[in-house]
């Protein structure tokens, strides 16, 4: 069955849909967590610490977090690899362009492809920035998530990178969520409107929720 | 020309295959008497099938299922595109699901009578018997026929018959049936039992030692002309309505396969029997390349009329009721707008000839739904005819809910074709003709929803049973190769013909000749024919033919994809077939079915059949281009349905 999945274009789309939905679930949780920053350093840092102790005493310190990280890495890799392979297949299937070209024809595909690449690069940046601190523009301290975030968004280019990425995320989710539903076969004429609404609401909420953090820092509400 | 008219009457031709006995038992008897081919030996036999329409597609699939090696051809890029796909109305079957008094015998009776007593009873009865099996077969294949809420099949009445025996799939019955056959064929192609050659056109028949042993065909992509050999050849190449240039046939439907077979010895029967369909969209100008039919079901609710006065050019809505002539209702009060196709067509022609036609060029009559919309409401009319109205509007840019439709008759179907016996074998042993390509079941006029029935009956059930007998009786034929002198000769002739077309370097396009021939045929061999008109046509055709070879211009070469060459080569055959059609029409000095001779009509202008003199099928034998053919008559015996003069008044 795994072989059938991976060998088929429809199967690879399924892999993308499932991995995409996993990431989406994670993002919802991530966004809710992020918003705690509006309740002050204490609560935010406490939350950050709690992430490492979830599941104790059954799980050891950071086990749950690592488990989530592993799942996420697998999802990202599966999503990206499928996307890359499918894109190559798509480009090969349409080697010559129409002389009279219509831009609308490839709008969704283009946003997904370029948006996907932007998001992939952003994830690397984001991990190096706020998880490891490697590229953090200010003074990065492990265990002080609140200060790291505020320090980060005090630099204009962090804001630009972050906001651009979140806008790309919104567009990606907008088409991606609905698309995943079609790939998994849950779409129908009756449900189409509902699915599109959910996709739009999710995209909007996540974008707004994530952007609220740098905006908070920039406006001084969070400092 | 005089030489061509001096045809000789040869020995009568008779069907020797239909067994004697009660008509209802003949098919069983024949199937029992026919020899069988051992299943293990079948794959050693190759059968060529030309065409992939309802008849060819179903035959190819079925023969392959039986174990034969089938080599099949179509000129289209895919077998799914054969012109059967355009049939709209439906398919008849004597299922009697409505319990409305239908039976095999009634379908048999209606078909013989509808054909104006010029069809063979044995064949027609078999067709009616098989009709019920066809529906079963198609449903099993997944053909999405219209159904009722209970999940059972829906039927409608069609073409003036009083029972509801027509099964349909909206207005696309032909498409759905053809796709069913195409899918069955595809399964056999995948299994390796059918070797399919799309974009390949048959250009001649190979006859060796008096038997059909193969064909010459051209690959339309590369231009390569090749020979293909077999133990039997089946022609399922459709009708020849495109002789008229404008018809409801597909642009590339052509007569080359049947005409070349005729030249190689197969008799051509009743070539003058052509069906003119009354409800087509009128032409809009000289640019017209083909005509589009609209289902005749429209006549169930639409009223046909023209203005009373000649040359009345007022728009329809400005013509008051008492200045309109609902001529069908006036002349045929009991049948009104539902008279058979030939009568409706001729009546339209008459009023237009009187100068009362409507629309551009005065070649049209109104088909008005205003009353129907008032009576049933626009919603109901939309539900019933919506797709036809849309099609009409797309083509004419007129809204038929607001202004009456304009219709005019157009060539639609050819009842004539290669003469075949009960086994569907032509006069060339080993050459079979099925579907519209043969002349068998419709006599002088085909009833609505019967073409699909006949095509599938021939392909699924008749031919696969009868061809066994031929193969079993001729089990060990010597293999034929490309080196055989007869093969070389046919190949050389074909190459020479195409070479001449390419070399002619004239100044007229193939289409210009086709159009000229078509106009001539429409005028003199169309809806109404006269002795003098047919003689005029017979004088003119050889002149056009002569001019054709002198002035034809075909660009490009033969070794490439060359659509002009394809066209020109088809016209070569139309120019000969047209002559035979006119001769047949001239010799048949009676009116029957689709063939109306003005000299032979009753006092009130109805077609007058002359059974004593013309109660036969006319099978013509080819003797040479421009030389008189030989007429062989097949006497038609009516034991069950006794000839009566049709009356629809």
């Amino acid at each position, binding site marked *: 069955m795994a072989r*059938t999945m991976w060998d*088929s*274009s*429809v*199967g690879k789309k399924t892999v993308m849909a499932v991995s995409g939905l996993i990431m989406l679930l994670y993002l919802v949780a991530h966004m809710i967590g992020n918003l705690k920053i509006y309740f002050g350093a204490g609560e935010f840092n406490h939350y950050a610490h709690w992430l490492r102790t979830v599941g104790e005493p059954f799980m050891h310190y950071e086990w749950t977090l690592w488990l989530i990280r592993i799942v996420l890495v697998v999802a990202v890799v599966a999503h990206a690899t499928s996307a890359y392979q499918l894109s190559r*297949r*798509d*480009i*090969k*299937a*349409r080697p*010559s362009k*129409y002389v009279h070209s219509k831009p609308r*024809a*490839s709008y*969704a*595909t283009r946003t997904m492809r370029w948006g996907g690449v932007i998001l992939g690069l952003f994830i690397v940046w984001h991990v190096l920035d706020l998880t490891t601190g490697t590229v953090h523009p200010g003074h990065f301290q492990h265990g002080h998530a609140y200060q790291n975030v505020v320090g980060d968004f005090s630099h204009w280019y962090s804001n630009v990178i972050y906001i651009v990425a979140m806008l790309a995320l919104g567009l990606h989710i907008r088409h991606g969520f609905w*698309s995943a539903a*079609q*790939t*998994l*076969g849950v779409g129908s*004429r009756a449900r189409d409107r509902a699915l599109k609404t959910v996709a739009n609401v999710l995209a909007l909420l996540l974008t707004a929720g994530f952007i609220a953090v740098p905006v908070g820092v920039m406006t001084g509400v969070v400092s | 020309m005089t030489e061509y008219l001096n045809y000789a009457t040869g020995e009568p031709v008779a069907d020797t295959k239909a067994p004697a006995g009660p008509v209802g038992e003949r098919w069983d008897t024949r199937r029992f008497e026919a020899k069988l081919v051992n299943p293990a030996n079948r794959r050693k036999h190759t059968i060529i099938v030309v065409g992939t329409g309802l008849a060819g597609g179903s035959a190819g*699939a079925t023969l392959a299922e039986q174990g034969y090696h089938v080599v099949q051809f179509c000129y289209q*890029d895919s077998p799914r*595109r054969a012109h059967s*796909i*355009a049939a709209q109305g439906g398919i008849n079957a004597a299922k009697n699901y409505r319990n409305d008094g239908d039976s095999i015998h009634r379908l048999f009776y209606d078909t013989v009578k509808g054909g104006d007593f010029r069809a063979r009873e044995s064949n027609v009865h078999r067709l009616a018997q098989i009709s019920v*099996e066809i529906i*079963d077969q198609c449903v099993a*294949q*997944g053909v*999405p026929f219209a159904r*009722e809420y*209970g*999940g*059972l*099949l829906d039927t409608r009445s069609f073409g003036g018959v009083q029972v509801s025996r027509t099964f349909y*799939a909206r207005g696309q019955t032909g*498409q759905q049936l053809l796709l069913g056959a195409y*899918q069955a064929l*595809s399964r056999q*192609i*995948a299994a390796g039992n059918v070797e*399919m050659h799309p974009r390949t056109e048959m250009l001649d028949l190979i006859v060796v030692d008096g038997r059909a042993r193969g064909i010459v065909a051209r690959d339309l*992509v590369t231009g390569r002309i090749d020979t293909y050999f077999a133990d039997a050849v089946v022609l399922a190449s459709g009708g020849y309505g495109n002789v008229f240039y404008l018809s409801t046939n*597909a*642009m590339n439907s052509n007569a080359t396969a049947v005409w070349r077979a005729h030249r190689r010895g197969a008799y051509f029967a009743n070539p003058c029997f052509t069906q003119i369909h009354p409800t087509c969209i009128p032409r*809009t100008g000289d*640019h017209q*390349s083909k005509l589009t*039919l609209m289902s005749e079901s429209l006549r169930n609710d639409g009223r046909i009329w023209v203005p009373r006065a000649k040359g009345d050019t007022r728009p329809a809505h400005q013509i008051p009721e008492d200045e309109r002539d609902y001529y069908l209702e006036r002349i045929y009060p009991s049948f009104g707008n539902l008279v058979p196709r030939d009568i409706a067509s001729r009546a339209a022609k008459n009023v237009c000839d009187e100068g009362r036609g409507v629309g551009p060029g005065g070649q049209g009559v109104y088909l008005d739904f205003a009353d129907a919309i008032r009576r049933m409401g626009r919603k109901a009319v939309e539900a019933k005819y919506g797709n036809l109205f849309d*099609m009409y509007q*797309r083509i004419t840019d007129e809204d038929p809910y607001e202004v009456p439709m304009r219709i005019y008759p157009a060539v639609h179907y050819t009842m004539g074709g290669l003469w075949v016996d009960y086994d569907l074998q032509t006069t060339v042993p080993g050459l079979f003709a099925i579907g519209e390509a043969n002349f068998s079941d419709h006599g002088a006029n085909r009833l609505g929803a019967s073409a699909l029935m006949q095509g599938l009956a021939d392909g*699924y*059930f008749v031919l696969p049973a009868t061809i066994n007998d031929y193969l079993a009786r001729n089990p060990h034929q010597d293999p034929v190769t490309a080196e055989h002198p007869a093969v070389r000769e046919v190949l050389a002739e074909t190459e020479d013909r195409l070479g001449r077309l390419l070399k002619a370097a004239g100044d007229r396009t193939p*289409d210009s000749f086709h159009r000229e021939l078509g106009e001539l045929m429409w005028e003199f061999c169309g809806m109404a024919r006269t002795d003098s008109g047919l003689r005029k046509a017979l004088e003119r055709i050889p002149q056009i033919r002569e001019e054709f070879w002198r002035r034809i211009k075909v*660009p*490009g070469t033969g070794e490439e*994809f060359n659509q002009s060459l394809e066209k020109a080569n088809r016209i070569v055959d139309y120019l000969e077939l047209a002559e035979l059609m006119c001769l047949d029409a001239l010799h048949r000095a009676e009116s029957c079915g689709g063939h109306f001779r003005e000299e032979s009509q009753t006092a009130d202008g109805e077609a007058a059949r002359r059974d004593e003199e013309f109660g036969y099928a006319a099978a013509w034998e080819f003797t040479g281009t421009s030389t008189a053919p030989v007429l062989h008559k097949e006497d038609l015996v009516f034991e069950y349905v006794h000839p009566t003069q049709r009356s629809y008044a």
Partner: protein
Amino acid sequence: MKLTLRVWRQRDAGAEGAMSTYEVDGISSDMSFLEMLDVLNEQLILSGEDPVAFDHDCREGICGACSLVINGDAHGPERTTTCQLHMRSFQDGDTIDIEPWRAAAFPVIKDLVVDRSAFDRIIQAGGYVTAPTGAAPEAHATPVPKADADFAFEHAECIGCGACVAACPNGAAMLFTSAKVNHLNVLPQGAPERETRVLDMVGQMDAEGFGGCTLTGECATACPKGIPLVSITRMNKEWLRATRKAGKR
């Protein structure tokens, strides 16, 4: 009407192609698009040039042979086949670009003619019900709910023209394949081969080099028969179901 046509000319599959410009005059708005091309071709033949090759046959919108991309749209600006497109959709003086279907799986044969045999092979892979002639039960033995019959018909309407592939930025054949899968899979007659059908047809579709679906919806917009985009969703569901079942076996 007077028009300027820019037409893709390509001698054969191996040759390089390019757009050529032609002028046609005296075009009536009642002409179909193909009749307009007939006028061009008559003109070209008489002037000793090679006429433009294009596929066409029934010219009533049902055979699926005609296949032109007109000003970037498969079958042109209206939702119909090229043969049913009329010149009244254009203005006097217009410049019209005419190109063939473009997809790796549909190589150009000449000018505007492409090879669509890949579609036939997809059908051969499983787009049928195995029902040998003579083996059929009585037609009324299995009633089919009207809704299912209508659903099947709606998908069976596909004419196999390939506009979906031509319009898809990925050259995908999902809409074509799904139309046949859905037509047969919903019917009781198609049930025994329900799983193998969808797996084999999708497999063949991939093998032919068609692209994957990114659900842009261009195919459904171009489809002259209105096969809906949700047809693809439905096939995905069938495919997943079949894959699951195959995994269990």
